[in-house]
């Protein structure tokens, strides 16, 4: 399909901002390395004496490990070591904060190499190091594991039944803060309440209650997980890996192999996508202990099947939503029951999902019940606005049905009910300045919305979404070079061009060109502590750190100029890309930089932040589809995504985040799902059968970049990366309804699932 003719050029930058660098589109600093194949990703590393590790994984979804016999594997020529859970430290039930939320170390350790039980097909059981990867693979096949298989439960609703097979004998539900008496697969039940829902529903003119089910999906980064480690004779460990957070890898490795964090140095390699899935460690501690046992650097890579079966995914879910709307079109009450699969260990993103589900609307009376449920699937990981997409699919579909029943235009409904500064969420917090309404207005004014959709079996759908974003800690340091450039070292691993967005904020503050900043992502020994690349936080928080580093440089340059001019520093100021003193004295940044090493100590700026006030992100999407009633296949004809980004630092990469997130949401909505057989084996663990969108499945994704500056950031930045994944499944469902009259309550809305609904509707007519 061809859409480019109609698509406006992305003329969204500029809009009269007072900035010189922010809002422009420089070529990214790491660009040439990445288009010439020279950039080094985790799997590209080669060290002298390198040997290779392979992980043996469980063929069963649920089994006790009776024994593991590694003797035959060890006897194979070329094999150097075999390790199992015993070789990791037994960390006990300690809860540690890993920058992504609290983690039970025993669970983390058991996930990396299973202790007494395997809890999903693909669960790591042992690892071999050998002179070649082929020998290691052969040796892994010679490890004899004696399993006692157990019944598996792979579905959230089944797992919640009292009769379900139990994954953990020691898991007792945290039931609204009370510990339950008998073990269960339900790790936690929590509730948020606001107002009086009985009263609210009594005031409603229409009350709609619906159930929704969504499938397990994977982040689907193209680069498989990888880790290379060298455990030196002095006890110092170096880890090279593709990760969203070098410091969290450092901490996880240190905890799991029992080393002080100062003995673990993590060198972040370029990373080939993460989307939340490359925060928790899988291979790094295994590579480290294999290195300790062999005295050699060890590289371990996952296969694509390992990635699907052993990492990721994001939870399947069951969600029930009840919505009451008055005759004036105002929401009177909303209630939801949400159960999310955590996978093998507790910790699904149900908390975030529960806080997001009603967040786009001002709801006077609300109740949210959330359940975190373990099942025999890989432990779920964060995936772009974790928990929010499932939730939005359910709520936004019900909202659309309410609009239909009350004959209200969906955008008018949002303008009537949408949140603004001062609105209170059902779970408590009050919104600061946000841009929900502005995204709705942007869609309302768009050419797309104002172009009528014609043709058979075509429909247009709308949906909105919310994500919190986060702040957390970031560090940057910046050295002024004598040629008037700045070497910037920052701690956020760069997953999509962020080092340029960060460098641009430093350049803007100093009044120099983006190309005069040379950014580097530092390793854990060369830059200050920095939290993960996640939570849409990097351009916000690490950009903030770069701003602070630039301010620090400004102060030092002012002092230096005062010293050179022999005037009081209070009479010197930094402005317009240089320093200005009394009597028309002036150094441009370049002129003063050239003087620095001749007149005193070097100038190095430092910025460390832990900012509050990240500001939430809102998006409203509109999509036109055509549905083939014979096959149930849904084609996207046109897509427009409006999003409040605060301030677009580099508009191309802002658009890119919106487009990429949207397309992941489209894949989630239309195609992607883990197929399990009754034994709990994933039957589609390849990119052929787990089908992510290709370019032939899609039109251009038009973006409406709305800028409501975030007061919590010097340049008004909000996070951008996550919220665009939230609205697509719901927008598609609403469009499908308009096209063929069926309400989809299940993800994915793949041809068989859509066709089933079309046939059911036909039969009932």
């Amino acid at each position: 399909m061809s859409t480019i003719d109609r698509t406006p050029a992305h003329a969204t930058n500029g809009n009269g901002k007072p900035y010189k660098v922010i809002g422009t589109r420089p070529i990214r600093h790491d660009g040439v390395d990445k288009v010439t194949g020279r950039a080094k990703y985790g799997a590209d590393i080669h060290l002298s004496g390198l040997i290779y590790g392979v992980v043996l994984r469980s063929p069963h979804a649920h089994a006790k490990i009776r024994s593991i016999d590694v003797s035959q594997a060890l006897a194979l020529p070329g094999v150097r070591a075999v390790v199992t859970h015993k070789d990791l430290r037994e960390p006990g039930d300690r809860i540690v904060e890993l920058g992504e939320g609290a983690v039970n170390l025993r669970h983390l350790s058991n996930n990396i190499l299973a202790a007494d039980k395997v809890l999903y097909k693909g669960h790591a059981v042992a690892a071999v190091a050998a002179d070649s990867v082929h020998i290691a693979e052969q040796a892994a096949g010679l490890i004899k594991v004696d399993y006692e298989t157990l019944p598996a439960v792979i579905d959230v609703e089944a797992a919640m039944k009292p009769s379900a097979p139990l994954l953990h004998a020691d898991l007792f539900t945290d039931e609204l803060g009370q510990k339950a008496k008998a073990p269960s697969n339900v790790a936690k039940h929590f509730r948020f309440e606001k107002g009086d829902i009985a009263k609210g529903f009594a005031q409603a003119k229409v009350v709609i209650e619906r159930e929704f089910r969504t499938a397990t999906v994977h982040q689907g980064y193209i680069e498989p997980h990888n880790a290379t480690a060298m455990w030196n004779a002095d006890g110092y460990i170096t880890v090279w890996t593709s990760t969203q957070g070098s410091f969290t890898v450092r901490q996880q490795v240190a905890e799991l192999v029992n080393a002080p964090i100062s003995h673990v140095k993590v060198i972040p390699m370029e990373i080939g996508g993460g989307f939340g899935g490359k925060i928790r460690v899988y291979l790094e501690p295994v590579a480290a202990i294999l290195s300790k046992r062999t005295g050699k650097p060890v590289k371990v890579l996952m296969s694509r099947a390992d990635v699907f079966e052993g990492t990721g995914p994001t939870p399947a879910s069951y969600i029930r939503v009840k919505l009451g709307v008055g005759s004036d079109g105002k929401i009177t009450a909303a209630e939801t029951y949400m159960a999310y699969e955590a996978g093998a260990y507790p910790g699904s993103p149900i908390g975030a999902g529960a806080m997001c589900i009603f967040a786009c609307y001002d709801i006077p009376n609300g109740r949210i019940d959330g359940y975190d449920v373990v099942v025999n699937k890989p432990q779920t990981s964060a995936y772009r606005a974790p928990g929010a997409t499932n939730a939005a699919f359910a709520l936004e579909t019900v909202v659309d049905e309410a609009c239909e029943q009350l004959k209200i235009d969906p955008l008018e409904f949002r303008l009537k009910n949408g949140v603004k500064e001062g609105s209170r969420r059902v779970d408590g917090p009050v919104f600061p300045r946000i841009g929900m309404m502005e995204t709705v207005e942007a869609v309302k004014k768009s050419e797309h919305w104002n172009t009528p959709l014609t043709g058979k079996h075509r429909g247009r759908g709308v949906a909105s979404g919310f994500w919190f974003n986060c702040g957390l800690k970031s560090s940057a340091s910046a050295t002024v070079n004598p040629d008037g450039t700045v070497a910037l070292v920052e701690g956020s691993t760069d997953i999509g061009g962020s080092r340029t967005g960060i460098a641009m904020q430093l350049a803007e503050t100093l009044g120099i060109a983006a190309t005069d900043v040379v950014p580097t992502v530092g390793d854990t020994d060369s830059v200050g502590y920095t939290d993960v690349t996640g939570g849409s936080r990097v351009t916000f928080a690490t950009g903030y750190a770069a701003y602070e580093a630039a301010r620090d440089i400004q102060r030092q340059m002012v002092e230096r100029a005062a010293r050179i001019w022999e005037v009081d520093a209070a009479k010197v100021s930094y402005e317009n890309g240089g320093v200005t003193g009394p009597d028309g004295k002036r150094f441009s940044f370049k002129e003063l930089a050239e003087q620095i090493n001749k007149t005193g100590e070097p100038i190095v700026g430092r910025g460390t932040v832990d900012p509050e006030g990240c500001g939430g992100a809102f998006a409203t999407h509109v999509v036109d589809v055509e549905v083939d009633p014979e096959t149930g296949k849904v084609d996207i004809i046109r897509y427009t995504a409006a999003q409040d980004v605060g301030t677009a630092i580099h508009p191309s990469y802002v658009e890119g985040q919106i487009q990429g997130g949207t397309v992941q949401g489209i894949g989630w909505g239309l195609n992607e799902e883990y197929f399990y057989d009754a034994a709990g084996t994933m039957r589609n663990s390849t990119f052929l059968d787990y089908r992510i969108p290709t370019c032939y499945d899609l039109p251009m994704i038009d973006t409406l970049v709305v800028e409501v500056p975030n007061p919590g950031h010097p340049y008004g930045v909000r996070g951008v990366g996550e919220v665009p994944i939230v609205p697509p499944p719901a927008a598609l469902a609403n469009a499908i309804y308009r096209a063929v009259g069926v309400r989809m309550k299940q993800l994915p809305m793949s041809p068989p699932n859509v066709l089933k609904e079309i046939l059911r509707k036909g039969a009932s007519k």
Partner: protein
Amino acid sequence: MAKRRVVTTTINGRQTEFLCEPRQTLLEVLRDTLDLTGAKEGCANGNCGACTVLMNGRPVDSCLVLGVETEGAVLETIEGVAPVDGLDPIQQAFLENAALQCGICTPGFIMSCKSLLAENSDPTENDIRFYLAGNLCRCTGYDKIVRAVLDAAKKRNAEPAPA
């Protein structure tokens, strides 16, 4: 260990000999033996296109070709695309159009794009989407990649033909 064989090929314009086991794929040889790590492994079974190289002018998934099959072949990898003193117009277009985020898919896309433009110097959006459907990108949603290819075609067509 199976007996290794000597294979003689031309890679990026230079005659190259390597030793390889019969079971080793071309991708493995490129990455591990020849240290040409620009071709990436995303799936190892022909589904993602991250390992795309040109073999006798045709794009192939190098994870599906055995090293020994390349005897006498002319291979071109991402490392051979840029002229000594700059970038190919395709590479330049990818940068100017911000057609990469993480960049892991980029070498494969550039190789496929090179082959597309060799076959069809003025492709439509639909031609591009059809031709590149074997290359997966999870980051960009493809919008900017398709624009980059259109732009690259335009740039190449504007250039005087090489003498």
